[in-house]
């Protein structure tokens, strides 16, 4: 197995993008990553195109994306794991390089969620769970996670104020990220008073659909050392799965088993423990998800996630800064781009290029990318 490093990263601003098509949005992120790596496009030996394709008008989008990025005739294919698509894409790229099949591989994640009309989005949303036994009753993404919130509250007393504090933290950092969709701080009161979506989740407990792309270029150790003085090493990878139906997930519903499994794999591969992580990006599709993620990743004890954010342990200066780019809640969540965006943020942290939100001396970083209603989870550990 060869060592694999990240040598280039790029990302568009996450926003509504009525001005651009998926190929053009993806090109922006790709161009930034190629310039960041300072390589020739022809050196890229394969492309992995990541999106939740049910949001795309374009069928099998790798075809049009690889064409527009100028990556024919090299191998290209789509990776889809809903919200974890590009986290899984990075794992694929690692395998292609580590095995010796390729030396330089690009992962591009994108989504243009505004491409569908709102009734089309609603229709897609209604099919986010098991269509045979759950969708006939009208569940939504927020509803699924709201059920986790009520289960967590029932067992551990996690309050709506504690949920709100996740949104407050992530908007605090989103306000400092020029690529975030929302660059404005919010208060606990504003979160609590926002429109109810699925009790106990309110509008500001939920991330926003958006348009955007992110790009990661990976290389073998030999190539990486020639390309850059600051390679960021992929030190650990984990990928786990959980049942799609809530009814096959046991009777507790306050943890995502796929995340626990992915974290275990990644910590073992990297040879580290949760305490060694200096900065993390975790999948905060909803405020409750971030609280459960702290517990699933071992950042705090089981049931203590609400208290952990209340004590500001996940701010810079706390035990483990989490989502210092604003997370999905403030940055926006163009589904297929999110995993790659998390990794881009962490690469900047490990290079010391994160500016105002730099975690000083960060050497080990962790990305946690959850797919769908918690069916897939990719955990990636990076080292300077």
């Amino acid at each position, binding site marked *: 197995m060869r060592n694999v490093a990240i040598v280039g990263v790029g990302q568009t601003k996450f926003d509504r993008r009525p001005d651009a098509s998926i190929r053009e949005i993806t090109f922006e992120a790709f161009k930034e990553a190629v310039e960041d790596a300072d390589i020739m496009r022809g050196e890229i030996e394969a492309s992995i195109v990541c999106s939740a394709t049910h949001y795309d008008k374009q069928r099998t989008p790798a075809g049009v994306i690889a064409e527009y990025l100028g990556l024919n005739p090299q191998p290209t294919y789509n990776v889809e794991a809903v919200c974890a698509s590009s986290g899984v894409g990075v794992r694929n790229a690692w395998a292609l390089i580590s095995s010796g099949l390729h030396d330089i591989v690009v992962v591009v994640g994108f989504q243009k969620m505004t491409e569908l009309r709102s009734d089309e989005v609603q229709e897609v949303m209604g099919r986010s769970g098991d269509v045979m036994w759950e969708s*006939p009753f009208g569940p939504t993404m927020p509803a699924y996670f709201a059920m986790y919130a009520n289960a967590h509250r029932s067992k551990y007393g996690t309050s709506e104020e504690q949920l709100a504090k996740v949104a407050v933290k992530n908007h605090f950092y989103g306000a400092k990220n020029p690529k975030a969709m929302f660059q404005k701080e919010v208060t606990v009161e504003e979160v609590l008073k926002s429109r109810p979506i699925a009790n106990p989740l309110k509008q500001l407990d939920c991330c926003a659909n958006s348009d955007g792309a992110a790009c990661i270029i990976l290389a073998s150790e030999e190539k990486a050392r020639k390309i850059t003085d600051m390679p960021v090493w992929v030190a650990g990878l984990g990928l786990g799965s959980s049942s799609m139906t809530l009814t096959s997930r046991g009777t507790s519903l306050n943890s995502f088993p796929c995340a626990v499994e992915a974290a275990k794999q990644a910590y073992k591969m990297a040879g580290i423990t949760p305490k060694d992580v200096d900065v993390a990006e975790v999948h905060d599709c909803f405020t409750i998800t971030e609280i459960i993620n702290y517990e699933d990743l071992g950042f705090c004890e089981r049931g203590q996630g609400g208290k952990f954010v209340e004590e500001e342990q996940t701010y810079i200066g706390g035990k483990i800064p989490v989502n210092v780019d604003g997370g999905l809640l403030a940055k926006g969540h163009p589904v297929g781009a999110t995993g790659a965006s998390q990794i881009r943020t962490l690469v900047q942290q490990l290079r010391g290029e994160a500016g105002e939100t730099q975690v000083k001396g960060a050497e080990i970083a962790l990305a946690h990318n959850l797919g769908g209603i918690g069916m897939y989870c990719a955990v990636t550990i990076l080292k300077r």
Partner: protein
Amino acid sequence: MTFTMSFGRFGKVSYVAETKLQDFMKYLEQGKIMGSKCKNCNRIYFPPRADCDCMVGEPEWIELSGNCRLITFTIVHFAPASFRYDVPYVLGVAQFEEGPTVFAPLSKDIKQEEIKVGMQLKLVSVKLPGDKIIYELRKP
């Protein structure tokens, strides 16, 4: 199998009509909540499965009492298009006294302030307009 027994009648909006479990609808129409039980390993499934995880046994139908305990719930205010005019509605996960769990709506007859994790409920079949049939959780 006649059309009227099709699984496509399950739920207000259904996406799956063809399944090996068509008889589930016949029983639901009779007011029976049926799970499946493996003849080999005796595992009981709800929702029922045509195939057991043990990959050996054939399933048979088994009637469940419907008695269950609420594990979690949510009050939905923002709904998929087909459910837009039903909001707010309550969805929950409950555990049968026989062991398996069910994902189901809670009856509109239960006041929202009465809903508590751990409360006892009963799963019953309900006929809807338009020849549809579902189940829902009611007070026992």
